[in-house]
Structures are given as structure tokens and as C-alpha cells.
């Protein structure tokens, strides 16, 4: 039990990077980007192939980020220059990436079990049960702080305005096409980064590993926002990270239920997202009703 939660947190931290990427596209740019299912694997594929060929793990991870960034910009260009609807641009890119990922890997599956990679380094270099956890916390926090800072720069503020009110940002000399392309690049870069880390952690890259990734990312964002709110950027990015971890823990606990199997994972994910979307509204409504009832009681008590 304890062990499975521990692992969930470790993996959750890796998926948190992916969730931050999804937060960028879905929330900041208001762009439902399905590229994620493909770019997650692209990150894994690029890193895996490079590791197999003896490239330094850090370089491999950086290359994975770059590959995801490029994939995202292509989705952005399909939408902005090609004039294709956002959802469709993402789907097209996702489907295209499936073939591209296969090409990169040369096979549906690349094993990393015999390779030196980031986590074998960490296990050997630092050692101990907590090594990976500590490194991942540091990595995620660094990314979070950088993202928080970025979203408050002149550039970042304009990026946020693009998803908020594109009429307004255009009238203040912001090129919405450029910001969308860049934002999607950054988003998918983070997703690919997560893909590269997860592949090394699990010891393989699989061409099907990305299926449903967007829903997992969305689940993390929604769970996080539902619990922590989204008052400021700093708080929301933290919410997304914790949301990703909570999602992993929920899944781990769900899988311990007797009659559920690994294959039920996607169904569980869908149900979690549905609950995270419906429950907060229902709770808010319930609170409002209670508040009103109490107020009425108070008023009638005063009169009586």
C-alpha cells in the first residue's frame, strides 16, 4: 500500500510536467490541443533512441523537449496559417505523430532496461529510496517557478491575454498567431519532456503509451483546480502539479480494488474527470442553497 502510493507520487511528479503543458494549452491559450497524445510518445521515442545510441541522458531529454516543441508549433501553424479548427489541428497532428513516432523508434517498442539513463544515474549517484523523488521534486519545482515567472513577463502576459481576449491583445499590437504557435510549442515541449522521463523510469518507450494522455492531463488540471482554486498563476500551477499526483494516487488505489483490472484504467480516468467536473459545481450549488436557507431562517427568526 505504502509502496504503491510512493511510486504514484514519483510517477505523478513526472506526469505533472505533462499536466503543466496541458494547462498551458487548455487554460492559458484556451486551445483544446490533442497533440499531447502524440507528443508525449515523441518525447519518449526521441529520448529512447538517443539513449540506445549512447547519447548523454541530459542531451536526450533536452532533445525530447525540442521535438515536442516542434510538434506543438506545427499544430499551431496548422491552426493559424492553415486556418484549421483547433481541435482538428490537434487530432491531425496526433495521428501524424503516431507514424512519425514509429519511424523514430523503428519498432513499436524500445527497451531501455539495458541502458544507462537519467534514473540509473540518480540511483547510482545519490542512491537510497528517496533519490528519484527528491530529484523529481526539484525538477518540477524549477519548471514551475520558471513557468510562473514567464507568465508574468511582458511576453507571458500577452500570451495569457491571447486565450482570454484576442481582440484586445491584437489592439495592443500582440500577434496572436505567433503567441499561439509559441504557446503550443512550449506546451508540447513540456509534454514530451514528461514522456522522456516516464520512458526512462519505466524502462521502455512504447508507441501506444500516449493514448488518452490528454484526458490524464486534463484530469490533473481539473482535479487540482477543483481542490486549490485558480486565484493566481502561482497557486494554479501548484494546483496542477498536485492534481497530477492526486490523480496517480487515485488510480493506484482504484487498481487495488479486487474486480478492477489494468485495462479499466481509461474508464477510471474518464470517471475521475467527470466527477472532478461535476462535483465542484454540485457542491457550490448545495452550499448556496444552505446559505440561503439559513438566511431565510435568520430573517424569519428576527421577524418572529
Amino acid at each position, binding site marked *: 500500500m505504502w509502496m504503491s502510493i510512493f511510486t504514484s507520487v514519483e510517477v505523478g511528479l513526472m506526469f505533472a510536467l505533462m499536466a503543466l503543458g496541458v494547462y498551458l494549452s487548455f487554460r492559458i491559450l484556451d486551445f483544446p490541443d490533442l497533440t499531447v497524445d502524440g507528443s508525449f510518445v515523441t518525447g519518449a521515442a526521441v529520448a529512447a533512441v538517443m539513449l540506445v545510441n549512447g547519447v548523454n541522458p541530459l542531451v536526450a531529454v533536452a532533445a525530447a523537449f525540442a521535438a515536442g516543441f516542434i510538434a506543438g508549433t506545427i499544430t499551431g501553424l496548422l491552426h493559424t496559417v492553415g486556418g484549421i479548427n483547433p481541435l482538428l489541428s490537434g487530432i491531425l497532428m496526433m495521428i501524424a505523430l503516431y507514424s512519425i513516432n514509429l519511424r523514430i523508434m523503428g519498432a513499436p517498442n524500445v527497451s531501455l532496461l539495458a541502458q544507462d539513463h537519467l534514473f540509473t544515474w540518480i540511483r547510482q549517484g545519490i542512491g537510497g529510496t528517496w533519490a528519484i523523488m527528491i530529484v523529481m521534486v526539484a525538477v518540477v519545482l524549477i519548471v514551475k517557478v520558471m513557468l510562473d*515567472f*514567464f507568465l*508574468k*513577463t*511582458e*511576453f*507571458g*502576459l*500577452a500570451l*495569457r*491575454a491571447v486565450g*482570454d*481576449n484576442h*481582440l*484586445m*491583445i*491584437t*489592439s*495592443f*499590437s*500582440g*500577434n*496572436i498567431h505567433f503567441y499561439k504557435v509559441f504557446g503550443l510549442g512550449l506546451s508540447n515541449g513540456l509534454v514530451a519532456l514528461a514522456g522522456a522521463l516516464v520512458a526512462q523510469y519505466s524502462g521502455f518507450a512504447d508507441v501506444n503509451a500516449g493514448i488518452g494522455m490528454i484526458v490524464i492531463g486534463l484530469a490533473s488540471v481539473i482535479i487540482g483546480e477543483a481542490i486549490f482554486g485558480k486565484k493566481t498563476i502561482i497557486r494554479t500551477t501548484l494546483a496542477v502539479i498536485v492534481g497530477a499526483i492526486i490523480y496517480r494516487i487515485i488510480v493506484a488505489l482504484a487498481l487495488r480494488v479486487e474486480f478492477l483490472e489494468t485495462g479499466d484504467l481509461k474508464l477510471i480516468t474518464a470517471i475521475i474527470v467527470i466527477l472532478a467536473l461535476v462535483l465542484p459545481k454540485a457542491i457550490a450549488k448545495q452550499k448556496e442553497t444552505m446559505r440561503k436557507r439559513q438566511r431565510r431562517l435568520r430573517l424569519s427568526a428576527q421577524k418572529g
Partner: protein
Amino acid sequence: MLQLNDIYKVFNEGTPDEKVAIDDISLDVKKGDFITIIGSNGAGKSTLFNVIAGKTFPDLGEVLIGEQDVTGLSEYKRARRIGRVFQDPMAGTSPTLTIEENLSIAYSRVKPRTLRPGVTAKRRAFFKEQLETLGLGLEDRLRAKVGLLSGGERQALSLLMATFTKPDLLLLDEHTAALDPSRAALITRLTKEIVEREQLTTIMITHNMQQAVDLGNRILMMDKGKIIFEEEGARKKHLTVTDLLNEFGKMKGTELSDRTLLGV
């Protein structure tokens, strides 16, 4: 400051819905001019604004700002020199960003956006000072999200954001039309103050004849894509709403819409 040379724009050309939105309009706006434009719906006022702002491109003719030919320049590039306030109070600001962040976006209009913080202590002081000129107490709510403001407050903020970088040209597109009378009066007063203080070259579309008469040194009346009446200087000053209504009747020879008559 702004020059329109023989602008012509037609929509749905060659179809039964063909509509000449702007029919060979030339206009020379001098530095410091404050022009009000009136005209019934469909007269081509908004298309004219869109042509100036770069949202639509003219089929014929050219647009010059200062000495620069901007006819083919995209909207966002032109926006460095043009401030705009829209009819919809929600259109000019970003609701999930704070007041100071919105001001920062407006502040970065005139130069490339960098990776430096958008709001600094120095800028915050400047924003505060600017907000004080509105007299709405917004200077004490710098970190409030703009989505929480009322329509009037948002429009006042939009007006400030459009003007405080002193654009070469200010375009006001019926920017008081969606507000209740007292808020509209406030925005009208602020507009007058700001334009006078900053000496801004301004063009304002309005359906409110009183406003068109009270504000500015030039007035244009548009109909069917043409400028049908024009007055400036001393003669504009003595113009009354009745005069305008007479002009409408005389030049058009057609019925007036209720909206125009009521001066809503």
C-alpha cells in the same frame, strides 16, 4: 496624421448580396483633430474604422499614418500607433488578468515584448498615477481581476489603456453606447479630458447626436458608404442637433431610423 486616399471597399462582390461598404472616401485628418462620425446603421462607419485599424483591407485606395503607408500592414503591427476603444466594454480588457497586468499589456504596446517582468515597482507607481486621473478608485484595486469590474469601470480602464501610451491615432467605436446614461456621461467626460490633455488625434463613431455635436472640432455624416456632410472649426462649434437632423433629411431625402432620431 491620418490620410485616406480614395478608399473603396465592397463586400460579396458579384453576388446578389453585393454591398459597397465604402464608396471612394478620401479623408485628411490633421494632427490634433477630434472628428465625430455619425450615420445610420450600415452607412459604412465601422468598415471605415476597420480599414483604418487594418482589420479589413480596402479594395482600392491607400491608408497613410503620418508619412507611413500602412495600407497592407497587418492589424497588430498598426496597433503600435493606434489606440482603440470598442463598443463592448468587455472587448478592451482581459478579464482573468489583474488591472495592473492589463495596464502592463497596454504599456508594452509600443515596443517588442520582452522576458522582463510585466509589472515592476516603477511601473506600478506609474499605473497608479494614471488610474487616479480616472477618479474611480481603481488605483486601490491594482491586483483585482478585471473580470470583477463593472461595465463602466472596464470601459474607463479600456479608455485609459488605449490612450496612456499617447498613440498617434485614437479610434473610439461607439464606446459609450453599451453603458447606462450616467456611466456613458462619465466615459464621455473622461474621453474629453484625456483627448484634450494628451492632444490626441481622435476619431469617434457615435449614434448619439448630442455627443457628436458636443465633442470634437470636426464632424462627418456618412450614408451608403459616402461622406454626405462635413463641418469643422467655428461652424462645427455652433452646430446643433436640429441642424444635424435637417441635414439628414435634406441630404438623404429618406426616412430616419428611430434610433437616429432619438439620439440613442
